[in-house]
């Protein structure tokens, strides 16, 4: 298949793996930011191909995982209002709040619907003028343009019965928060390719400089990730700390300017709570100015009781890369996809769910690619 099969080619993967084996002389810890990358790594068994010296840790780039629990509670409370049609992307539905998920609310009679685009939610509002349509606007910079567009379009078409429950988060502040933590183990980053497709990667230069850490903008197919790892490890071995772009077929340095303009018109940067990580300054978006009339937070003031997190869930440590999912005592014992204690066990992009589904329940032996000239290790 065009644009897919060529990035899943075994021969090319073996060659890249071999280059990585040749390059590495000491242990390195690399974090992939995005949950989509985690998914590919685990789904394709990429760690099987890498030298033992390379540790991949899985970053906070799963929007489902970092959405604060009180916002899930709020979403559930709004969804249960009889006049509301609550729209969400599919994988938010199973995330546990303090006591309920959106799926539970749906089972109890709430009108909760899966949509594929925020504009579909807007369409729903237009065709149901007697109902209130609320869209759960979660995600990183990648989904921000579409969510901004929905608010912009609602304003343009004067749709009154539409609102967004916004929980947008931003990657660079989270990277800085991780890097400035004393327990930080990360030595290099695979930045999230699609985030950079929208935002460009200029904002990563100061981070690479300040924390002396290599950052490689990386795609999501197996070959992208292997190449991203190779570029990161090469920098580490050569004592460089630069911003490089592996994902050239989709990402430019300046990003997508029209998308950025729409985001800036509709959203303003605010402090945000990250589930598992706490509050990070200037790390999220909320609706600004004339778009605030579409803010579900304002339309439905909170009356919820304080949120309760599971005490056993160590998702904070996992999202920072300090612990791996199978190192959590509750992993696959008390915490399973059927009965998740924390969000990373829910989403297909969550590290715990990826480990659970694809059988990474304990450490695996690495298989060195069988190619001539591979240094033994």
């Amino acid at each position, binding site marked *: 298949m065009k644009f897919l099969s060529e990035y899943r080619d075994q021969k090319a993967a073996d060659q890249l793996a071999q280059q990585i084996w040749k390059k590495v002389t000491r242990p390195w810890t690399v974090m992939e930011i995005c949950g989509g990358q985690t998914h590919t790594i685990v*789904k394709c068994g990429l760690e099987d191909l890498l030298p033992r010296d390379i540790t991949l840790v899985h970053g906070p780039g799963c929007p489902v995982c970092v959405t604060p629990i009180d916002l899930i509670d709020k979403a559930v409370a709004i969804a249960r209002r009889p006049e509301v049609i609550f729209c969400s992307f599919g994988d938010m539905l199973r995330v546990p709040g303090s006591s309920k998920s959106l799926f539970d609310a749906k089972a109890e009679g709430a009108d909760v619907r*899966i949509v594929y685009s925020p504009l579909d939610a807007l369409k729903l509002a237009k065709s149901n003028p007697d109902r209130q349509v609320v869209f759960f606007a979660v995600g990183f910079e990648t989904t921000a343009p579409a969510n901004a567009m929905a608010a912009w379009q609602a304003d343009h078409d004067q749709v009154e019965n539409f609102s967004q429950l916004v929980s947008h988060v931003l990657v660079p502040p989270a990277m800085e928060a991780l890097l400035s933590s004393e327990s930080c183990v990360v030595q290099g980053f695979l930045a999230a390719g699609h985030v950079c497709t929208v935002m460009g990667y200029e904002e990563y230069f100061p981070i690479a400089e300040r924390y002396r850490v290599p950052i490689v903008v990386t795609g999501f197919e197996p070959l992208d990730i292997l190449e991203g790892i190779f570029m990161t490890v090469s920098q580490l071995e050569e004592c460089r700390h630069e911003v490089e772009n592996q994902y050239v077929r989709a990402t430019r340095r300046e990003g997508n300017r029209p998308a950025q303009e729409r985001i800036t018109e509709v959203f303003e940067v605010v402090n945000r709570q990250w589930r598992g990580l706490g509050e990070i300054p200037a790390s999220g978006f909320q609706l600004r100015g004339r778009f605030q009339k579409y803010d579900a937070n304002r339309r439905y003031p909170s009356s919820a009781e304080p949120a309760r997190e599971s005490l056993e869930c160590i998702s904070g440590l996992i999202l920072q890369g300090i612990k791996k999912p199978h190192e959590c005592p509750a992993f696959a014992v008390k915490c399973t996809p059927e009965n998740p204690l924390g969000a990373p066990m829910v989403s297909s992009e969550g590290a715990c769910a990826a480990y659970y589904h694809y059988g990474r329940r304990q450490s695996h032996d690495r298989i060195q690619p069988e190619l001539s000239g591979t240094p033994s290790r």
Partner: protein
Amino acid sequence: MADVKVMTEFNLSCPVPRVADDRIVLAHGGGGRLTHQLIEKIFMPAFGNPMLEQRHDGAVLPLEGVGMKTGSRLAFTTDSFVVRPLIFPGGNIGDLAIHGTVNDLAMCGARPLYLSAGFILEEGLAMDTLRTVVASMQQSAAKAGVQLVTGDTKVVDKGKGDGIFVNTSGIGLIEANVKQTIGPSSVQVGDAVIVSGDLGRHGIAILSVREGLEFESPILSDTASVWPAVEALLNAGIEIHCLRDLTRGGLATTLNEIASDRNICIKLEETLIPVQETVQSACEILGLDPLYVANEGRFAVFVPAAQVDAALEVMRKVPVSQESVRVGRVEETPGRTVVLQSRIGGNRVVDMLSGEQLPRIC
């Protein structure tokens, strides 16, 4: 019967408005005149046969002429069908209701013979929709060589159903010469796993309509009777260890059930698994894994490794299974596991899903 005739002959001109006959009303399930009309106008013309025409509470089935001999056995199965939308690209709930039960019988190695059909209709259902569904049931039953010999109809209040629910039960015959037990208990280490064609078309066809997704070339459901393929395998004397249709939960779920039941490992190779490019693209866009997507005309067959080529040759001559391929094999360890060797060369466990696959955010 007699009552109906009398009523029509009298031709009463009653001031009560005539019941519209373009929609299902509650009285169609009341057991009275309208029920009778429904049976006579819609079901009988489609399915009429000597057994149904007995108009009895049940069907009395002749066993001579169907191949019943000493040593042959009956297979019996039932399945209920609920699907939204009722009519989708490549089929409708009627095809599904026939093929689903026919295929369940085929998976026992049984020639499908007789079916029952129970309809639960929702008040307000367009009569044209019912006609369409019944017409395709008639066609697929005829094509599959089964007779619909008994049935039932109920009507529920508007809002208490989803248009049409159908239950079909079926009886099939396992010929006396089929000695082996076909089922998970016969699966052995070393067996090859064959699938009868490309995967995921039915699930994606349904999803595309349900979610209003449009693809350049429409994806059609694979709904079909797979009995001809099974019959060909049996006639060729292939030693079939296990047959399973790949419906809800797809190939991954089916194989997991067998692996855990038999405490074996089923090892798949990603490069061998056939998925149509449009289906693969749709799955990539939606964040779904075609291994878990439902099929309605596909099955997996376990055969001894030595018979793979013979089995494939036989299957590829039958239209419904002409794209059969070997996708994996049965190994001893690790038990209760399905392992997939990815295109890239790494291995991963293909787990049972918890709940439905959900499209992801980005």
